[in-house]
Protein backbone atom coordinates (compact mmCIF):
# COMPACT_ATOMS: atom_id res chain seq x y z
CA UNK A 1 0.00 0.00 0.00
CA UNK A 2 1.24 3.47 -0.82
CA UNK A 3 2.31 5.62 2.09
CA UNK A 4 -0.28 8.25 1.25
CA UNK A 5 -2.99 5.61 1.51
CA UNK A 6 -1.70 4.46 4.90
CA UNK A 7 -1.65 8.06 6.12
CA UNK A 8 -5.24 8.50 4.98
CA UNK A 9 -6.13 5.42 7.03
CA UNK A 10 -4.60 7.13 10.06
CA UNK A 11 -6.67 10.21 9.30
CA UNK A 12 -9.75 8.04 9.04
CA UNK A 13 -8.82 6.55 12.43
CA UNK A 14 -8.84 3.08 10.96
CA UNK A 15 -6.84 0.50 12.88
CA UNK A 16 -5.87 -0.95 9.52
CA UNK A 17 -3.40 1.93 9.42
CA UNK A 18 -1.28 0.31 12.13
CA UNK A 19 -1.54 -3.11 10.52
CA UNK A 20 -0.46 -1.74 7.17
CA UNK A 21 2.37 0.20 8.77
CA UNK A 22 3.55 -2.89 10.61
CA UNK A 23 3.31 -4.95 7.47
CA UNK A 24 5.30 -2.51 5.39
CA UNK A 25 7.76 -1.05 7.87
CA UNK A 26 7.77 -3.35 10.90
CA UNK A 27 10.94 -5.14 9.92
CA UNK A 28 12.78 -1.94 9.10
CA UNK A 29 11.75 -0.26 12.35
CA UNK A 30 12.75 -3.25 14.41
CA UNK A 31 16.13 -3.13 12.78
CA UNK A 32 16.51 0.55 13.65
CA UNK A 33 15.50 -0.08 17.26
CA UNK A 34 17.71 -3.12 17.54
CA UNK A 35 20.76 -1.20 16.40
CA UNK A 36 20.27 1.19 19.29
CA UNK A 37 19.01 -1.18 21.96
CA UNK A 38 20.73 -4.47 21.05
CA UNK A 39 17.90 -6.30 22.73
CA UNK A 40 15.04 -7.96 20.88
CA UNK A 41 12.42 -7.43 23.57
CA UNK A 42 13.25 -3.77 23.93
CA UNK A 43 13.30 -3.35 20.16
CA UNK A 44 9.85 -4.87 19.84
CA UNK A 45 8.60 -2.59 22.59
CA UNK A 46 10.10 0.41 20.82
CA UNK A 47 8.39 -0.53 17.57
CA UNK A 48 5.04 -0.99 19.32
CA UNK A 49 5.47 2.39 20.94
CA UNK A 50 6.27 3.81 17.50
CA UNK A 51 2.90 2.65 16.20
CA UNK A 52 1.15 4.15 19.21
CA UNK A 53 2.95 7.47 18.86
CA UNK A 54 2.24 7.53 15.15
CA UNK A 55 -1.42 6.84 15.85
CA UNK A 56 -1.49 9.77 18.25
CA UNK A 57 0.40 12.06 15.88
CA UNK A 58 -1.59 11.45 12.70
CA UNK A 59 -3.80 13.40 12.48
CA UNK A 60 -3.10 16.26 12.67
CA UNK A 61 0.44 15.63 11.49
CA UNK A 62 0.77 14.66 7.85
CA UNK A 63 4.29 13.33 7.31
CA UNK A 64 6.06 14.34 4.13
CA UNK A 65 8.13 11.16 4.07
CA UNK A 66 6.40 8.44 6.06
CA UNK A 67 9.38 6.08 6.26
CA UNK A 68 11.65 8.81 7.65
CA UNK A 69 8.91 9.97 10.01
CA UNK A 70 8.58 6.47 11.47
CA UNK A 71 12.34 5.98 11.63
CA UNK A 72 12.84 9.17 13.61
CA UNK A 73 10.14 8.18 16.09
CA UNK A 74 11.64 4.73 16.57
CA UNK A 75 15.12 6.15 17.03
CA UNK A 76 13.95 8.68 19.61
CA UNK A 77 11.91 6.11 21.50
CA UNK A 78 14.87 3.73 21.48
CA UNK A 79 17.17 6.42 22.84
CA UNK A 80 14.60 7.23 25.51
CA UNK A 81 14.49 3.58 26.46
CA UNK A 82 18.23 3.57 26.89
CA UNK A 83 17.78 6.10 29.64
CA UNK A 84 15.72 3.65 31.57
CA UNK A 85 17.41 1.49 34.11
CA UNK A 86 16.40 -1.85 32.66
CA UNK A 87 17.87 -1.01 29.28
CA UNK A 88 21.12 0.16 30.81
CA UNK A 89 21.49 -3.14 32.60
CA UNK A 90 21.43 -4.92 29.28
CA UNK A 91 24.02 -2.64 27.78
CA UNK A 92 23.52 0.24 25.42
CA UNK A 93 24.95 -1.26 22.27
CA UNK A 94 26.88 1.22 20.16
CA UNK A 95 25.57 4.32 21.88
CA UNK A 96 28.44 4.83 24.36
CA UNK A 97 30.88 4.51 21.47
CA UNK A 98 28.86 6.97 19.39
CA UNK A 99 28.81 9.46 22.23
CA UNK A 100 32.55 9.19 22.72
CA UNK A 101 33.14 9.78 19.03
CA UNK A 102 30.73 12.68 18.82
CA UNK A 103 32.37 14.30 21.81
CA UNK A 104 35.28 15.06 19.49
CA UNK A 105 32.98 17.40 17.59
CA UNK A 106 32.29 19.46 20.68
CA UNK A 107 35.64 20.93 21.59
CA UNK A 108 34.61 22.17 25.00
CA UNK A 109 31.45 20.08 25.17
CA UNK A 110 29.17 23.03 24.67
CA UNK A 111 26.13 23.16 22.48
CA UNK A 112 23.83 26.18 22.31
CA UNK A 113 20.31 26.02 23.62
CA UNK A 114 17.53 26.55 21.07
CA UNK A 115 17.26 30.14 19.94
CA UNK A 116 20.89 30.80 20.68
CA UNK A 117 22.32 31.40 17.23
CA UNK A 118 21.86 28.92 14.44
CA UNK A 119 19.84 25.88 15.45
CA UNK A 120 21.83 22.70 15.81
CA UNK A 121 19.55 20.92 13.37
CA UNK A 122 20.23 23.52 10.70
CA UNK A 123 23.97 23.25 11.29
CA UNK A 124 23.81 19.48 10.93
CA UNK A 125 21.77 19.69 7.75
CA UNK A 126 24.16 22.24 6.28
CA UNK A 127 27.07 20.04 7.24
CA UNK A 128 25.50 16.96 5.64
CA UNK A 129 24.66 18.93 2.52
CA UNK A 130 28.30 19.81 2.15
CA UNK A 131 29.57 16.27 2.62
CA UNK A 132 30.37 14.03 -0.31
CA UNK A 133 27.72 11.32 -0.78
CA UNK A 134 29.89 8.46 0.48
CA UNK A 135 31.03 10.32 3.58
CA UNK A 136 27.51 11.56 4.23
CA UNK A 137 25.99 8.11 4.01
CA UNK A 138 28.64 6.61 6.24
CA UNK A 139 28.08 9.39 8.77
CA UNK A 140 24.29 8.92 8.77
CA UNK A 141 24.60 5.15 9.04
CA UNK A 142 26.92 5.50 12.00
CA UNK A 143 25.33 8.35 13.95
CA UNK A 144 21.67 8.19 12.95
CA UNK A 145 21.19 4.45 12.58
CA UNK A 146 23.90 3.42 15.06
CA UNK A 147 25.46 0.91 12.69
CA UNK A 148 28.76 -0.63 13.67
CA UNK A 149 31.84 0.33 11.70
CA UNK A 150 32.25 -3.27 10.62
CA UNK A 151 28.67 -3.37 9.39
CA UNK A 152 29.13 -0.21 7.34
CA UNK A 153 32.39 -1.44 5.91
CA UNK A 154 30.82 -4.69 4.81
CA UNK A 155 27.80 -2.97 3.30
CA UNK A 156 29.91 -0.75 1.09
CA UNK A 157 32.66 -3.26 0.48
CA UNK A 158 35.18 -1.02 2.22
CA UNK A 159 37.85 -1.71 4.78
CA UNK A 160 37.06 -0.87 8.39
CA UNK A 161 40.04 1.45 8.52
CA UNK A 162 38.67 3.35 5.53
CA UNK A 163 35.31 3.78 7.25
CA UNK A 164 36.97 4.88 10.48
CA UNK A 165 39.09 7.40 8.60
CA UNK A 166 36.05 8.73 6.71
CA UNK A 167 34.15 9.11 9.97
CA UNK A 168 37.07 10.82 11.68
CA UNK A 169 37.37 13.34 8.83
CA UNK A 170 33.61 13.94 8.87
CA UNK A 171 33.70 14.53 12.62
CA UNK A 172 36.52 17.00 12.13
CA UNK A 173 34.54 18.86 9.47
CA UNK A 174 31.49 18.86 11.75
CA UNK A 175 33.60 20.23 14.58
CA UNK A 176 34.71 23.06 12.32
CA UNK A 177 31.11 23.71 11.25
CA UNK A 178 30.06 23.93 14.87
CA UNK A 179 32.96 26.23 15.63
CA UNK A 180 32.19 28.50 12.69
CA UNK A 181 28.65 28.87 13.93
CA UNK A 182 29.96 29.82 17.31
CA UNK A 183 28.80 26.65 18.94
CA UNK A 184 32.08 25.79 20.55
CA UNK A 185 35.47 27.25 21.60
Amino acid at each position, binding site marked *: MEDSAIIELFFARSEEAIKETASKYG*RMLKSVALRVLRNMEDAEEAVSDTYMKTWNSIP*PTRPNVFSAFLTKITRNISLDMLDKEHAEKRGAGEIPALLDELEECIAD*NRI*PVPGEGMELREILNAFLEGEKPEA*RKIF*VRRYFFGSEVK*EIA*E*FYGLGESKVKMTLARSRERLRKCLEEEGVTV
Partner: protein
Amino acid sequence: MITDKNRLLRAIGDIDDKYITEILSEDAQGKQNVVKVPFNQRPVIRNMKYYLPAAAALLIVVACIKSGVFSGMGATSSGGNNAADASPQAAYSPTASADEAACEPMMECDSAMQTDGMISEAASNDKTDNGSVNYLGPDLSEAEVDMINPFTDCGSLAEAERIAGFEFDVPDDLEPDLEAVYRAMDGKLIEVIYFDRGEEIYRIRKGTARDVSGDYNEYSVSVCVDAATWAGELKGYKEGLTNCAVWTDEDGFGYSLTTGAAPIKTDRVCEIIDLLMQ
Protein backbone atom coordinates in the same frame (compact mmCIF):
# COMPACT_ATOMS: atom_id res chain seq x y z
CA MET B 1 24.96 26.60 26.97
CA ILE B 2 24.27 22.99 27.72
CA THR B 3 27.12 20.63 28.49
CA ASP B 4 25.48 17.52 27.13
CA LYS B 5 26.96 15.53 24.30
CA ASN B 6 23.72 13.57 24.18
CA ARG B 7 22.12 16.59 22.59
CA LEU B 8 24.26 16.22 19.52
CA LEU B 9 23.21 12.60 19.19
CA ARG B 10 19.58 13.60 19.65
CA ALA B 11 19.91 16.44 17.16
CA ILE B 12 21.25 14.02 14.56
CA GLY B 13 17.91 12.26 14.95
CA ASP B 14 16.23 15.36 13.57
CA ILE B 15 18.18 15.68 10.33
CA ASP B 16 16.35 16.16 7.05
CA ASP B 17 14.27 13.25 5.88
CA LYS B 18 16.19 13.00 2.62
CA TYR B 19 19.33 11.84 4.39
CA ILE B 20 17.37 9.08 6.11
CA THR B 21 15.54 7.93 3.02
CA GLU B 22 18.86 7.86 1.21
CA ILE B 23 19.99 5.12 3.57
CA LEU B 24 16.64 3.33 3.71
CA SER B 25 16.61 3.18 -0.07
CA GLU B 26 20.07 1.68 -0.10
CA ASP B 27 19.01 -0.90 2.45
CA ALA B 28 15.94 -1.73 0.42
CA GLN B 29 18.07 -2.33 -2.63
CA GLY B 30 20.44 -4.51 -0.65
CA LYS B 31 24.18 -4.65 -0.93
CA GLN B 32 25.24 -3.30 -4.25
CA ASN B 33 28.94 -3.41 -3.67
CA VAL B 34 31.05 -6.49 -3.79
CA VAL B 35 31.64 -7.89 -0.35
CA LYS B 36 35.19 -8.91 0.21
CA VAL B 37 35.31 -12.58 1.07
CA PRO B 38 38.44 -14.52 1.97
CA PHE B 39 39.57 -16.73 -0.88
CA ASN B 40 39.07 -19.92 1.09
CA GLN B 41 35.39 -19.03 1.48
CA ARG B 42 34.75 -18.96 -2.26
CA PRO B 43 34.33 -22.59 -3.26
CA VAL B 44 31.68 -21.78 -5.83
CA ILE B 45 33.86 -19.19 -7.54
CA ARG B 46 36.94 -21.40 -7.46
CA ASN B 47 35.05 -24.28 -9.09
CA MET B 48 33.13 -22.09 -11.51
CA LYS B 49 34.94 -23.57 -14.51
CA TYR B 50 33.22 -26.85 -13.76
CA TYR B 51 29.82 -25.43 -12.95
CA LEU B 52 29.40 -22.89 -15.74
CA PRO B 53 28.91 -25.34 -18.64
CA ALA B 54 26.48 -27.40 -16.59
CA ALA B 55 24.55 -24.30 -15.55
CA ALA B 56 24.37 -23.08 -19.14
CA ALA B 57 23.04 -26.42 -20.32
CA LEU B 58 20.47 -26.47 -17.54
CA LEU B 59 19.30 -22.97 -18.45
CA ILE B 60 18.80 -23.98 -22.06
CA VAL B 61 16.75 -27.02 -21.04
CA VAL B 62 14.61 -24.93 -18.68
CA ALA B 63 14.07 -22.29 -21.36
CA CYS B 64 12.95 -24.94 -23.83
CA ILE B 65 10.55 -26.49 -21.34
CA LYS B 66 9.09 -23.11 -20.37
CA SER B 67 8.67 -22.13 -23.98
CA GLY B 68 6.72 -25.31 -24.68
CA VAL B 69 4.57 -24.95 -21.59
CA PHE B 70 3.65 -21.34 -22.22
CA SER B 71 2.83 -21.87 -25.85
CA GLY B 72 0.54 -24.69 -24.83
CA MET B 73 -1.16 -22.77 -22.05
CA GLY B 74 -2.04 -19.76 -24.15
CA ALA B 75 -3.38 -16.51 -22.72
CA THR B 76 -4.83 -18.02 -19.57
CA SER B 77 -1.43 -18.90 -18.18
CA SER B 78 -0.53 -15.34 -17.26
CA GLY B 79 -3.42 -15.06 -14.85
CA GLY B 80 -2.68 -18.13 -12.84
CA ASN B 81 1.05 -18.59 -12.85
CA ASN B 82 1.59 -17.24 -9.37
CA ALA B 83 -0.25 -18.56 -6.39
CA ALA B 84 0.91 -15.65 -4.29
CA ASP B 85 -0.71 -13.20 -6.68
CA ALA B 86 -3.93 -15.09 -6.46
CA SER B 87 -3.93 -14.81 -2.70
CA PRO B 88 -1.96 -11.80 -1.55
CA GLN B 89 -3.54 -11.93 1.88
CA ALA B 90 -1.80 -15.22 2.49
CA ALA B 91 1.48 -13.35 2.64
CA TYR B 92 0.08 -10.66 4.88
CA SER B 93 -0.69 -11.10 8.51
CA PRO B 94 -1.22 -8.16 10.83
CA THR B 95 -0.72 -10.22 13.96
CA ALA B 96 2.27 -9.62 16.13
CA SER B 97 3.53 -13.17 15.84
CA ALA B 98 3.47 -13.13 12.07
CA ASP B 99 5.12 -9.73 12.09
CA GLU B 100 7.83 -11.11 14.30
CA ALA B 101 8.43 -13.95 11.91
CA ALA B 102 8.77 -11.53 9.03
CA CYS B 103 10.83 -9.12 11.07
CA GLU B 104 14.17 -10.76 11.22
CA PRO B 105 16.55 -7.89 11.87
CA MET B 106 18.46 -6.57 8.89
CA MET B 107 21.69 -6.97 10.79
CA GLU B 108 21.14 -10.66 11.10
CA CYS B 109 20.25 -10.92 7.45
CA ASP B 110 23.39 -9.05 6.56
CA SER B 111 25.51 -11.31 8.70
CA ALA B 112 24.01 -14.39 7.15
CA MET B 113 24.69 -13.06 3.68
CA GLN B 114 28.24 -12.26 4.53
CA THR B 115 28.83 -15.70 5.94
CA ASP B 116 27.70 -17.19 2.71
CA GLY B 117 29.86 -14.83 0.75
CA MET B 118 26.92 -13.85 -1.37
CA ILE B 119 25.64 -10.53 -2.56
CA SER B 120 22.09 -9.75 -1.61
CA GLU B 121 19.69 -9.11 -4.41
CA ALA B 122 16.86 -8.05 -2.09
CA ALA B 123 14.45 -9.00 -4.81
CA SER B 124 11.36 -8.47 -2.75
CA ASN B 125 12.28 -5.01 -1.59
CA ASP B 126 10.97 -1.98 -3.37
CA LYS B 127 11.59 1.73 -3.46
CA THR B 128 9.31 4.46 -4.67
CA ASP B 129 10.08 7.97 -5.80
CA ASN B 130 8.55 9.65 -2.78
CA GLY B 131 10.94 8.07 -0.31
CA SER B 132 8.63 5.25 0.54
CA VAL B 133 10.56 2.08 1.16
CA ASN B 134 8.95 -1.32 1.15
CA TYR B 135 10.79 -3.81 3.31
CA LEU B 136 9.71 -7.27 2.37
CA GLY B 137 6.15 -6.07 2.45
CA PRO B 138 3.46 -8.10 0.84
CA ASP B 139 2.80 -7.78 -2.87
CA LEU B 140 -0.65 -6.34 -2.80
CA SER B 141 -2.94 -6.57 -5.73
CA GLU B 142 -4.16 -3.43 -7.43
CA ALA B 143 -7.57 -3.96 -5.91
CA GLU B 144 -6.08 -3.77 -2.44
CA VAL B 145 -4.17 -0.60 -3.17
CA ASP B 146 -7.47 1.12 -3.88
CA MET B 147 -8.70 2.34 -0.54
CA ILE B 148 -11.64 4.15 0.86
CA ASN B 149 -11.04 7.86 0.58
CA PRO B 150 -12.15 9.37 3.87
CA PHE B 151 -13.09 12.58 2.07
CA THR B 152 -16.38 13.00 0.28
CA ASP B 153 -16.48 15.47 -2.57
CA CYS B 154 -19.44 17.76 -2.16
CA GLY B 155 -21.36 19.93 -4.58
CA SER B 156 -21.85 22.67 -2.04
CA LEU B 157 -20.81 23.85 1.38
CA ALA B 158 -24.23 22.90 2.72
CA GLU B 159 -23.69 19.32 1.61
CA ALA B 160 -20.27 19.28 3.26
CA GLU B 161 -21.80 20.61 6.46
CA ARG B 162 -24.43 17.89 6.38
CA ILE B 163 -21.78 15.17 6.11
CA ALA B 164 -19.53 16.71 8.75
CA GLY B 165 -22.40 17.33 11.12
CA PHE B 166 -21.46 20.91 11.92
CA GLU B 167 -21.56 24.29 10.22
CA PHE B 168 -18.71 26.17 8.62
CA ASP B 169 -19.53 29.82 8.00
CA VAL B 170 -17.59 30.66 4.88
CA PRO B 171 -18.74 33.97 3.38
CA ASP B 172 -19.97 33.64 -0.19
CA ASP B 173 -17.83 36.56 -1.24
CA LEU B 174 -14.66 35.33 0.45
CA GLU B 175 -12.98 34.54 -2.86
CA PRO B 176 -15.35 35.54 -5.67
CA ASP B 177 -12.70 35.17 -8.34
CA LEU B 178 -11.57 31.69 -7.34
CA GLU B 179 -13.11 28.29 -7.92
CA ALA B 180 -14.08 26.55 -4.68
CA VAL B 181 -14.12 22.81 -4.13
CA TYR B 182 -15.89 21.42 -1.07
CA ARG B 183 -15.01 18.19 0.68
CA ALA B 184 -16.00 16.65 4.00
CA MET B 185 -15.00 13.86 6.30
CA ASP B 186 -17.88 12.19 8.06
CA GLY B 187 -18.41 13.83 11.43
CA LYS B 188 -14.89 15.26 11.50
CA LEU B 189 -13.87 17.77 8.93
CA ILE B 190 -14.95 20.26 6.27
CA GLU B 191 -12.48 21.46 3.69
CA VAL B 192 -12.76 24.20 1.09
CA ILE B 193 -10.04 24.39 -1.54
CA TYR B 194 -9.67 27.50 -3.67
CA PHE B 195 -8.24 27.18 -7.15
CA ASP B 196 -7.19 29.74 -9.71
CA ARG B 197 -7.18 28.25 -13.21
CA GLY B 198 -6.48 24.82 -11.80
CA GLU B 199 -3.77 25.91 -9.40
CA GLU B 200 -4.48 25.60 -5.70
CA ILE B 201 -4.17 28.94 -3.94
CA TYR B 202 -5.10 27.81 -0.46
CA ARG B 203 -7.40 25.55 1.48
CA ILE B 204 -9.28 26.11 4.69
CA ARG B 205 -10.49 23.47 7.08
CA LYS B 206 -12.72 23.22 10.09
CA GLY B 207 -12.70 20.10 12.19
CA THR B 208 -13.18 18.55 15.57
CA ALA B 209 -9.45 18.36 16.36
CA ARG B 210 -7.44 21.35 17.51
CA ASP B 211 -4.94 21.22 14.65
CA VAL B 212 -6.59 20.07 11.46
CA SER B 213 -3.96 21.38 9.09
CA GLY B 214 -2.19 18.08 8.51
CA ASP B 215 0.88 20.18 7.80
CA TYR B 216 4.05 18.47 9.04
CA ASN B 217 6.50 21.03 7.72
CA GLU B 218 8.80 22.83 10.11
CA TYR B 219 8.69 26.58 9.62
CA SER B 220 11.29 29.06 10.69
CA VAL B 221 8.84 31.89 11.38
CA SER B 222 5.92 31.56 13.73
CA VAL B 223 3.57 34.26 14.93
CA CYS B 224 0.99 33.71 17.64
CA VAL B 225 -2.18 35.77 17.33
CA ASP B 226 -4.80 36.30 19.98
CA ALA B 227 -7.59 38.20 18.23
CA ALA B 228 -11.04 39.04 19.46
CA THR B 229 -12.77 36.07 17.88
CA TRP B 230 -9.92 33.61 17.39
CA ALA B 231 -6.51 32.62 18.65
CA GLY B 232 -3.91 30.75 16.71
CA GLU B 233 -0.53 30.52 15.08
CA LEU B 234 0.66 31.68 11.67
CA LYS B 235 3.68 29.86 10.30
CA GLY B 236 5.96 30.40 7.34
CA TYR B 237 9.51 30.65 6.12
CA LYS B 238 9.71 34.44 5.85
CA GLU B 239 8.40 37.22 7.98
CA GLY B 240 5.23 38.68 6.57
CA LEU B 241 4.40 35.56 4.58
CA THR B 242 2.31 32.66 5.83
CA ASN B 243 2.25 29.08 4.59
CA CYS B 244 0.11 27.58 7.31
CA ALA B 245 -2.25 28.99 9.89
CA VAL B 246 -4.02 27.07 12.62
CA TRP B 247 -6.51 28.52 15.04
CA THR B 248 -9.42 27.56 17.23
CA ASP B 249 -12.73 29.04 18.20
CA GLU B 250 -14.49 29.28 21.53
CA ASP B 251 -16.41 26.05 20.86
CA GLY B 252 -13.22 24.04 20.54
CA PHE B 253 -13.31 23.57 16.79
CA GLY B 254 -9.97 23.65 15.03
CA TYR B 255 -9.37 25.57 11.82
CA SER B 256 -6.52 25.77 9.38
CA LEU B 257 -5.46 27.61 6.29
CA THR B 258 -2.68 26.10 4.23
CA THR B 259 -1.42 27.68 1.06
CA GLY B 260 -0.73 26.06 -2.26
CA ALA B 261 2.66 26.47 -3.89
CA ALA B 262 3.11 30.10 -2.85
CA PRO B 263 2.75 31.61 0.61
CA ILE B 264 0.23 34.38 1.24
CA LYS B 265 0.88 37.69 2.94
CA THR B 266 0.26 37.34 6.64
CA ASP B 267 -1.99 40.41 6.66
CA ARG B 268 -4.20 38.83 4.02
CA VAL B 269 -4.33 35.56 5.97
CA CYS B 270 -5.44 37.47 9.04
CA GLU B 271 -8.13 39.17 6.96
CA ILE B 272 -9.40 35.82 5.73
CA ILE B 273 -9.49 34.39 9.23
CA ASP B 274 -11.27 37.49 10.51
CA LEU B 275 -13.89 37.05 7.79
CA LEU B 276 -14.33 33.39 8.67
CA MET B 277 -14.60 34.04 12.38
CA GLN B 278 -16.97 37.02 12.29
